[in-house]
């Protein structure tokens, strides 16, 4: 491969370099024309901001060009396959965006009188109804802002329920393969975290779990399907074992996309599960948020659901903001400002209504089919960490790369040059050099085939001794591998004016 040409401007065809906004424009320029305020005496009480803020000024065309150029440095689902295991990067329908922005939905203020927002409360109530029906659970707390936030709320309800029983329990059990959020959440709720080992089949070791369960355990946090892409086949026994010692079963619902419409978590004995609307229900990831993480709850835990929540009484929707209305409720209090990620409820509901009960069932089936197809077609060149069938994602270990000088990371970076986003790497931690691939149901057979052929070609090149080329990858991106060590040793977390830069040196 020849070196990319050096150019005078630094641009390379469609790869356009773009300076920071702070290196552009001038302070008096602006892209927003606002009227001159009427000349009134101010009421700022002498607290005027006197020094310059330091913001750059740009015109509208400059601003539009800046962000357009930045956008062109990003990979996205709209441009190609995102086989990130555990992340469910599926297509984001544009209808969702359209309805979320309708006047009368996107522009509502959360503190309008409830008489003026009956339609919005109906959206929340309807979205909740779909989520409860799909999970088989009797209640859902809608306000958590993201999956991890949902975990936090779920564990808070569990701790509140345990304290209400007059008990003190100190431990939460979490499988070694769990998402990092699980132990972090348990710790944030004041619990000590203890690992549950996996068995050779990549599932929770039921006997080891039973040995650790006692009346000091508040909850188990189990992802199902788990982070190895496998259904916990003993899940009903796991739930029973937890319940037998009075512990709760928290299910991490990050992988709900594999089973939606086919399996109701309620039928597995769970007490509590968060749902990532930005995974299963197609709301956009937006470069890292915002998310939305409603938590479904059993009737026992529902008493502790956070404020506020919506109830429907004879056709009229009420917003319970202070918890004084229901004598049985023992609400946690608020866990976020206002009423939850409403804009995500509109998007998720639009998706669910578009798919329908039949479409959602087909979606989970296709998601699982696509992952198993990848496993079947790659298993002769890459080693599946566990025998099939898998659920919506398949994990390979790095056995076949041994002694090639090519690591999982190198393979992933080479995939970038081939026009694909890398798979999830080195997670779950229990699989050596893990490559976790989740195609989702919104990829066509043609796309899967090209991905598979590309992976096969890369593995064969690695085995053919072309390690050096892998270490150079990626070569065709706006930036090549970045020096993360330098970034962490001497953090530069903001732009500084040149004069301050010099003074600091």
């Amino acid at each position, binding site marked *: 491969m020849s070196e990319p040409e050096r150019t005078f401007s630094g641009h390379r065809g469609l790869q356009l370099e773009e300076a920071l906004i702070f290196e552009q424009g001038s302070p008096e320029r602006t892209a927003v024309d606002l009227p001159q305020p009427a000349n009134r005496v101010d009421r700022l009480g002498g607290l005027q901001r006197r020094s310059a803020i330091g913001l750059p000024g740009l015109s509208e065309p400059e601003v539009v060009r800046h962000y357009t150029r930045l956008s062109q440095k990003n990979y996205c689902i709209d441009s190609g396959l995102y086989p990130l295991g555990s992340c469910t990067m599926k297509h984001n329908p544009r209808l969702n965006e359209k309805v979320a922005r309708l006047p009368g939905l996107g522009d509502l203020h959360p503190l309008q009188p409830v008489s003026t927002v009956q339609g919005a409360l109906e959206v929340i109530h309807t979205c909740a109804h779909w989520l409860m029906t799909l999970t088989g659970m009797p209640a859902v707390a809608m306000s958590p802002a993201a999956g991890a936030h949902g975990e936090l709320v779920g564990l808070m309800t569990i701790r509140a329920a345990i304290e209400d029983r007059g008990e003190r329990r100190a431990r939460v059990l979490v499988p070694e393969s769990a998402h*990092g959020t699980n132990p*972090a959440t348990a710790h944030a709720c004041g619990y000590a975290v203890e690992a549950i080992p996996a068995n050779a089949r990549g599932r929770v070791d039921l006997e080891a779990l039973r040995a650790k369960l006692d009346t000091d355990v508040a909850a188990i946090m189990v992802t199902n399907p788990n982070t190895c892409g496998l259904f916990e086949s003993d899940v009903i026994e796991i739930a029973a074992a937890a319940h037998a010692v009075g512990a709760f079963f928290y299910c991490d619902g990050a992988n709900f996309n594999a089973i939606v419409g086919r399996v109701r978590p309620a039928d597995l004995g769970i007490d509590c599960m968060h749902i990532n609307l930005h995974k299963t229900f197609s709301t956009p990831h937006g470069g890292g*948020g915002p998310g939305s993480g409603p938590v479904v709850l059993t009737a026992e835990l529902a008493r502790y659901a956070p404020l506020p929540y919506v109830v429907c009484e004879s056709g009229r929707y009420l917003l319970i*903001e202070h918890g004084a209305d229901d004598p049985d409720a023992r609400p946690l209090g608020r866990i976020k400002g*206002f009423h939850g990620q409403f804009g995500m409820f509109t998007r998720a509901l639009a998706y669910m209504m578009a798919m329908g009960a039949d479409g959602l069932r087909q979606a989970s089936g296709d998601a699982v089919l696509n992952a198993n197809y990848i496993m079947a077609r790659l298993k002769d060149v890459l080693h599946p960490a566990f025998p099939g069938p898998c659920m919506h994602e398949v994990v390979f270990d790095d056995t076949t790369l041994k002694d090639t000088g090519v690591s999982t990371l190198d393979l992933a970076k080479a995939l970038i040059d081939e026009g694909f986003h890398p798979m999830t790497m080195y997670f779950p931690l229990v699989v050596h050099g893990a490559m976790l691939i989740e195609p989702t149901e919104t990829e066509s057979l043609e796309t899967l085939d090209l991905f598979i052929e590309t992976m096969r070609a890369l593995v064969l090149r690695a085995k053919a001794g072309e390690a050096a080329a892998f270490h150079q990858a990626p070569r065709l991106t706006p930036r090549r591998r970045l020096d993360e060590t330098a970034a962490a040793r001497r953090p530069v977390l903001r732009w500084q004016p040149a004069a301050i830069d010099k003074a600091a040196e």
Partner: protein
Amino acid sequence: MRYLPLSEDDRRHMLAAIGARDIDDLFSDVPAPARLADPVDLPGHQGEIAVEQAFRGFAGRNLSPAEAPCFLGAGLYRHHVPAAVDHLIQRGEFLTAYTPYQPEVAQGTLQYLFEFQTQVALLTGMEVANASMYDGATACAEAVLMAVRLGKTRRRAIVAGGVHPHYRDVAATYGRFADIDMIAAPPSWPGTDDPAALIDAKTACVVVQNPDVFGRIHDYSDLAEACHRAGALLIVNVCEPVSLGAITPPGEMGADIVVGEGQSFGNATGFGGPTVGFFATHTRFVRQMPGRLVGQTVDADGRRGFVLTLSTREQHIRREKATSNICTNSGLCALAFTIHLTLLGEAGLRRLAALNHANAVALADRLARIPGIEVPDGAFFNELTVRLPRPAAPVVEKLAADGILAGVPASRLFAGEPGMEALLILAASELTSESDLERLAAGLREALS
């Protein structure tokens, strides 16, 4: 089904490659009693036309603030969002990108977050800011947790009466499970409480808000000094960041952590979410910060680039020892924030803030002319609280029935707190027109007569 590309032929071909009879075969690990034979009891799939009509139906049962004189604030503010903002954030490369863990293919997201961090630091007058939080209220709660981590054995957090009650409640919920001793002062109006009097040797932090929930602005310099003398940190919360274009930033008053709600820039009020929290502090505290951070570095060819950095604070590496369980920022809302602020620039932000203040002064003057309404003398930015001669909530309801969104009754925020019944919190903005003021004044006159 328009979102699913596989045809029946494709499925047969794939099942053959796998060696499975049908898709149900692939679910053999699911215990048989838990496998549903049929779709759940919900409606079947629908085309775009039907779904869009359903949502127009939902929307039609609400009163859009665009159709009404609107004086609602109390934590979220209706501002004009320039057309370019919504156009740019809907570019698929922003909207449908993942978290920028692979920096070679995510420089766009990383650079705008680096610019966002810089803008927040400049606005708040602090040294460093993170890549955003869920919202202002959770940012505030995380600030309290961080102050308690830094305070080691100090576990008391004092929350002033002027802090938005949602923020106070969220901090209390988080604190309940984190063994934090929270002292929340009751709200007071027209007077204010004195959090300095509550500081003791166990105090990790004092939380105040500027402008406070009643719209009043304060100089917290003396409080900052009192905190620092006692070894405590001052957390200042800002719900209306447009104010930072007009008033002294918390950093210049001596704040140690500045948090807040960034919705005012680029984001609609959206019935409460999603929005974007911000979080800024001193460089020396950076390793105790929650949330993602973007840092500058170079690539293999020596060119400037950006990466997520200091990730060892975070849950995916540190697990139960992480500074927070957060695994999300508010990326797209932060993008809307940063685009709007870039469009404004220094001059535009100054003008926007001046316009907001001028319209709020006009609102105050207009309200002062209505018999029976008590308008206080103190300093404010774009929001103020007045006392009506009767409970505010029914008055607001009555005006809403006439298509006027007259503000937020303090009793809705502070249920059961004494002295709140007759208080009405009203905000003005660059969108407030003379005719809005006219209709509000007429409506209030009639309701109070």
